[in-house]
């Protein structure tokens, strides 16, 4: 068994006609994985190995970074998204870096934009994000703001970054930029978008902005990062660098690379527009449901007991007429139901067709042109903080943090 070797052991590998030296890495599917001196990993029978030596682990060198006290103080709060990593070529292991000094060393140019304090909140895969962590995150960001940070950078896995940005948009009133950033291509690769995204996010965090935003590549080129409003942004591609898009309007600004020049649109909320505030209650008994042809009314019934349900309907905001009775029941029992559209682009309007009018009569609230995910985060926050159903409905119908685009511009 391979239990006798541990990662980093120097082993002799007799395979083929020659004996080769290598480093034991791990065992995988019945093979011992050895990194040969040539750098290649090979999977060979564990019986072909014998131990030569067990070297002591090499400690990465200590780093001290002197930060420029004249630059704005920025905070980096990490949740698991990696903006810096380090490779151990002896074993091939890639480790994420969260410490401010390590991040500075990996991306030295950050030191020309600000001085940093790093705070590791959690290291989760972003698909494992929860409303409870949003609450912790909002609290941590609020503390940084209260502590005088000129801007806060939140590193986040990209899968659920848009949800988190939307949630924090509602939970926080911020006078400084709160910038979400991540990378679509892993930070270990020389081509990673991490460096440019990190530098642009730092520049945005130091800019004249006062809202929650996402800063990521605007195109496949390394030329511009877009600054997206936290309530209007969505991940629209599985893997591309420019996966993040502002839906229903333009980004609120850009950061040019490599100059790191920030250009804000007139609609961007400026630094210092509000006093910092934190309202972090969330009602977690909320869900989002994408309608599809043939959906059984029984599906609606399963949401009985929920505080709120976001429907992602077809077209202008429709579901099958068969679903209207169970929806009426659900609403009568106290569940708030808000209609959004799975078209993502465009506004819900349930006054055009009969089905829509029936939905409105049943008590469904039109979600305007809110993104379904934003609507969910907003609903959790509204229902978490407002117990009066009528007030809650009024809030859902109001534009709180730019989640409604107000007027529909023609750009897609």
């Amino acid at each position: 068994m391979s239990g006798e070797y541990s990662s980093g052991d120097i082993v002799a590998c007799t395979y083929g006609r020659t004996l080769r030296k290598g480093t034991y890495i791990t065992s995988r599917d019945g093979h011992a994985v050895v990194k040969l001196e040539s750098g290649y990993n090979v999977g060979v029978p564990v019986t072909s190995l014998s131990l030569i030596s067990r070297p002591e682990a090499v400690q990465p060198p200590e780093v001290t970074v002197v930060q420029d006290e004249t630059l704005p103080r920025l905070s980096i709060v990490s949740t698991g998204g990696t903006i810096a990593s380090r490779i151990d070529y002896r074993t091939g292991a890639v480790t994420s870096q969260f410490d401010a000094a390590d991040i500075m060393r990996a991306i030295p140019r950050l030191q020309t934009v600000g001085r940093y304090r790093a705070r590791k909140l959690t290291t989760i895969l972003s698909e494992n994000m929860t409303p409870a962590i949003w609450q912790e995150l909002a609290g941590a960001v609020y503390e940084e703001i209260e502590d005088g940070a000129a801007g806060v950078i939140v590193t986040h896995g990209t899968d659920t970054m848009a949800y988190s940005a939307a949630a924090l948009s509602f939970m926080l009133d911020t006078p400084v930029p709160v910038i979400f950033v991540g990378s679509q291509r892993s930070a270990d690769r020389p081509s990673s978008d991490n460096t440019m995204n990190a530098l642009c996010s730092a520049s945005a965090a130091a800019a004249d902005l006062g809202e929650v935003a996402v800063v990521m590549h605007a195109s496949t080129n390394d030329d511009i990062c877009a600054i997206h409003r936290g309530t209007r942004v969505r991940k629209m591609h599985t893997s591309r660098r420019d996966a993040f898009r502002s839906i229903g309007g333009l980004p609120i600004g850009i950061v040019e690379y490599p100059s790191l020049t920030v250009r804000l649109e007139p609609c961007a909320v400026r630094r210092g527009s509000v006093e910092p505030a934190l309202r972090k209650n969330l009602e977690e008994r909320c869900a989002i449901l994408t309608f599809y042809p043939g959906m059984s009314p029984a599906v609606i019934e399963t949401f009985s007991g929920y505080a709120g349900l976001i429907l992602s309907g077809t077209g202008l905001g429709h579901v099958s007429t068969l679903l209207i009775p169970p929806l009426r029941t659900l609403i009568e029992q106290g569940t708030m139901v808000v209609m959004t559209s799975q078209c993502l682009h465009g506004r819900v309007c349930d006054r055009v067709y009969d089905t829509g009018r029936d939905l409105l009569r049943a008590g469904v609230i039109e979600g305007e042109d809110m993104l379904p995910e934003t609507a969910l985060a907003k609903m959790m926050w509204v229902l978490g903080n407002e117990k009066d159903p009528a007030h809650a409905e009024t809030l859902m119908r109001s534009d709180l943090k730019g989640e409604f685009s107000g007027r529909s511009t023609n750009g897609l």
Partner: protein
Amino acid sequence: MDYERLGLKAGIEIHQQLNTREKLFCHCPTVLRTFDERSGEFFRFLRATESELGEIDEAAKEEMKQERRFCYYAYVTTCLVEYDEEPPAPLNPEALEICCTIARTLSMTPIGQVHTMRKLVIDGSNTSGFQRTALVALDGVLPNGGSIETICLEEEAAQRVEGDTFSLDRLGIPLVEITTSPCMKTPEEVREIAAYLGMVLRSTGRVKRGLGTIRQDVNISIRDGARVEIKGVQELDLIAEVVRREVLRQQNLLSIRDQLRDRGASVMEEPEDVTGIFRDTKSSILKKAHSVLAVRLPGFAGLAGREIQPGRRLGSEFADYARKCGVGGIFHTDELPAYGITAEEVGQLRAMLRAGGDECIVLVAADEKKARCAAQQVVIRAGWALRGIPEETRKMLEEGSTAYMRPLPGAARMYPETDVFPVTITADWYSSLPLPELLTTKRDRFVRELRLDPALAAQLVSSEQVGLFEKMVDAGISPSLAARTLLSTLKELSRSGTDVRYLSDEAIMEVLSAVEGGEAAKEAIPAILGMVASGTTVAEALRKCAPALSRDELREIVRRIVEDRRDFIAERGIGALGPLMGVVMAEVRGSVDGKLVSEVLKQEIAAQVQENGNRNGKKV
């Protein structure tokens, strides 16, 4: 030259593109495009990532000296994987199978579980900043008794358009890399082994052909010399010459070293600013330069200009190093006065520096920063001349001499490509892979079994058409007809402007089968193929080009002609065959095979001769 006595040790690394349907880690076709077919461009910056030990690879650092912006050409035949915008697809099983077939042919031991690695390459030729590569098999055997160390399956890099612009059509084409041990002892042996490996690769029938699809790197050292890697020898015929010239270079450099030592030569590390001397010079390079620096090399006079390889001097090596700083070249006093620099100026230079007669002075001219850098590089290279030969990666120049490219790379920086799962190679599967018939064996078989001329057989097996040839022979087409059609008819057609790419293997076979069946004449083959190439169906072309006469129709024509020339035949007997052949052929216009005409004509003439004889006999 006695290479064994010189302690020559050489090994080769062969890179061969595989002719798979798809690329190694995506489903794009493995086709090359012309640059103007590009559908878009994008640009990126690459940066070295830090290793655990806090160091950045030396070669990588060299590349990172300037922040470099790379531009890439995209095509409709490339996808997000080439753009480093999508994770790779699983390792292409077709490529792995070809790689394993080659490995098995070379008696190599396959790796049980093949792991794809990322090898750091940040010269821009890979969008990701690394090349994906997997070690597939170990320890092969060569005919000279030497060994093959490894065979790897890797992705081809992007093609450089110019400067920092790359074309992505080539990126990701599967490549096998075969590395031999340094087991070759003469230049000819290197050529033989390279030829042998090339032959084995082509024997699979599944590798790409043509310029640039196979590249050889050669590792060379001699006793007391240094290991030098020469990149990108594309033509096999030059490989022995490259080795010979490298041995010569190393011998000459060693001899220069000994002479320098005897003279007590030295390198003065601090360059002198001599810009003032050349303020009014006729050398435009020196005149327009902000800074002219002189590197002083006491004891080097006469040796910097010494030839070390055809067309290359020690001074050329200094210049190679200096060019790394962006200067166009250097001047040294061994070659002066020249290039607009006068003897008087050289005299002033020597006087100003109080240089002795045995001192060589190297001049670099550029802006201050570049000139400093270039002078420093000359100092480094000149220092090596006193010690011996630096270990280097060199690039081949035309005709086999070489120039400095970069220092030898350290151990490759590799870490696992976690997006690609390891692939298991089972012993059963590996041993079930059919071994290709080696082209040399095939050649001998063609001579033996098909009675082909040895030269023709050799030409056939080295052509890309050998597979089609065998299919034709299996289909009952005569080997000589098949060989002639493939090796000459198609070439002639192509030369006369027919686009033979439009001729499918099936169409060519159909035409030849029709000829073998007597439906068309051999003489009509070019015309028929020409029509098929321009879009006519085979059947239609056969009908148009070869309104084939039946044997009976032919006999009728022949009889008429023979009858008309009764007297001529009476006079010449069977000797009339030759002249009448022409008459018949003119009438049937190539629609009948000459052999058949000759056969029928001979019969008819014989019949008439016989008849005449009988008649005469009666008379008598």
